């Protein structure tokens, strides 16, 4: 029971983190058709910026400044990089962001070194929020949840209730028409890219302590975010939400489960010995298999339901 509750809580926190990344990616993809390979790199930059700014001005201002900085960088990437290759099609755009992810990872090494930085939870939010089954639950995870949920509520409201939000929504499906009506669509691109990058940066700020802050973190998390986007259905933000939660919770549970096929077979009275051909495969613990689960889910999804959970078009 304790295991189930804590895995659910941690899985939900991780899922929300994934959703912060995948929602920005989905937004950018829906509007511009660009698959941003540098998205996880901006997440990483958010984590590094927050660490650096926390040392200079304290954590609370850093929580605001780091995502803003990421948003500015995102806007610059769109304005001065992607716009130049936009006319040459999506492959050129993907390749541009792919090259950028290399460069950002190397710039991070240049700025902060190759080793992980000690990105600890700041003292001001490092206390127990509540106790469950005699174990304390840290406040910063509650804060992570609150910030992500609050951010989504704000963005949802902004999209549904403001004029600019309506224009962006219209541009998602009918960019030419929106342009014909006199709106500056390229400027919308910059804006949406900046919002997505700022979201990734914010996820980096609050996810930085939960994950190891190191130059490889973008390369480690990036593919999982892509899986989320495909499983949820490319271009669907609600789909990205369900897929984020699904993968977040499944992966958290998997890490906690110390069982293997051998145990399952044992329950049915079958025992394998080391000499058996399939022993090695059967002996893999679920916890060991955790890194592979999102990708297996991806393949299964592609075979069973190519459009993803809530996708409207076949992916």
């Amino acid at each position, binding site marked *: 029971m304790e295991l189930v509750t804590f895995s659910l809580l941690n899985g939900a926190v991780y899922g929300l983190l994934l959703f912060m990344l995948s929602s920005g990616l989905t937004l950018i993809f829906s509007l511009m058709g660009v698959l941003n390979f540098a998205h996880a790199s901006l997440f990483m930059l958010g984590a590094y910026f927050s660490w650096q700014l926390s040392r200079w001005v304290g954590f609370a201002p850093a929580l605001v400044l780091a995502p803003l900085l990421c948003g500015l960088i995102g806007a610059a990437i769109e304005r001065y990089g992607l716009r130049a290759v936009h006319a040459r099609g999506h*492959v050129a755009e993907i390749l541009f962001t792919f090259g950028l992810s290399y460069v950002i990872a*190397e710039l991070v090494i240049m700025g902060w070194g190759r080793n992980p930085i000690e990105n600890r939870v700041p003292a001001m939010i490092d206390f127990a929020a509540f106790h469950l089954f005699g174990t304390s639950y840290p406040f910063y995870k509650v804060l992570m949840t609150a910030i992500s949920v609050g951010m989504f509520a704000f963005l949802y409201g902004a999209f549904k209730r403001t004029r600019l939000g309506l224009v962006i929504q219209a541009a998602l499906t009918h960019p030419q028409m929106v342009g014909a009506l006199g709106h500056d669509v390229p400027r919308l691109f910059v804006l949406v890219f900046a919002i997505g990058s700022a979201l990734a940066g914010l996820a980096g700020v609050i996810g930085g302590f939960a994950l190891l802050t190191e130059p490889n973190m973008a390369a480690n998390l990036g593919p999982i975010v892509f899986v989320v986007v*495909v499983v949820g259905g490319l271009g669907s933000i609600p789909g990205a939400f369900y897929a984020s939660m699904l993968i977040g919770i499944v992966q958290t549970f998997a890490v906690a489960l110390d069982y293997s096929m051998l145990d399952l077979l044992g329950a049915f009275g079958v025992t394998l010995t080391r000499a058996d051909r399939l022993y090695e495969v059967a002996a893999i613990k679920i916890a060991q298999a955790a*890194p592979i689960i999102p*990708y*297996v889910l991806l393949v299964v999804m592609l075979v069973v339901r190519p459009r993803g959970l809530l996708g409207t078009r076949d992916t």
Partner: protein
Amino acid sequence: MTRERLAWWIAAALALAVLPLVPGLDSSFSRSLLTQMGIAAVFALSYNLLLGQTGLLSFGHAVYFGLGGYAAIHFLRAINGGLPIPVPFVPLAGAAAGLAFGIVLGAVTTRRAGTIFALISLGIGEMVHAATLMLPGFFGGEEGVTASRTRAPHWLGLDFGSQLQVYYVIAFWLLAAAAAMYAFMRTPVGRMCNAVRDNPERAEFIGYNPQRVRFVVFSVSAMFAGLAGGLHAINYEIVAAEAVSAERSGVVLLMAYIGGVHHFIGAILGAIAITWLQVSLSDYTTAWLLYLGLFFMAIVLYVQGGLAGIVTLHAPFVRARSAGRLLRAYALAFVPVAAEVFGAIALIEMAYRRSTAPESGTHMRLFWIAMDTSTPWPWLIAAATWAAGYVAWRRVRPRIAAEWEAVNG
């Protein structure tokens, strides 16, 4: 095949034959470098069947290279154990494994093209990489699987102990694979690949299933990637999880794209250039991946055809004898660009030293100039050099563009 093309192929074969004997390239280091270039060229050519010829952008092509490599290394182990097959045939095991996995995984991945294909290939790549680490019995974990190419039956008096003999095995397979891929692109299926790349709807309209065409070319490409993996297994006598990693998939993409995807020769040029950078630049600087990334982005932004594109762009001027004028215009750009590059390299190297090797102190030498990075002067001078180069470049650029127009007109 026209006579001219046949002449090119014979010239290529002769070049491959004499290259490791040319003075300057006849050291064991250069022969090893040439061997690595050959392996990379087969892999990059197989990648370009997807990206250049069919328009499929894959981020997981190392899967087939690596699995082919694993199959070949296990085959080599079997030969070490007494299987009477000579070493030069080992890459065929790699090709067979590449083809088999290409058929199995290709059936899932090639249903879609474009962005989705790119995403799926990335996911499959990560999955296979994670799986190799989970099954240490077959894949040997991080350390990998080793075998010996010398504990095998001798063939035609060759024992494959020296780098030169290995080079010739790889040169032979490079030539054979390149010729096979070149020929494949001239079959009706190969032509349909181009059609599916350029206009899938029209290809479908005239009765070809684009999905089928993608599947066929994907399997063929995986087979040649597996062959490259087999060559890798012979050359290094070890295959580890790194062979299927996302890094390797990324590097082959860089090779094919930097070389130029619109020309057959492009992948080979890219493989030569990137392998050389990997081997030699990494001796001088730890920042070589940054330079590679920046170089790649510059190619994506400014030079669509890659290195091969630069060559074909200028070939008409050489023929029309107007290349001299163009060269003079380029010479004008040399000083500003050199200043920019010099300033940027100085800044990058100083920053890298400060953050990745603080224990080696603040004194360093760069381009034979001693500097102390704890004072602001080297930073200011480097930044000023870069800025001056940039401003000067902005000023000469219109003149070069005008010259370009004049030559073209």
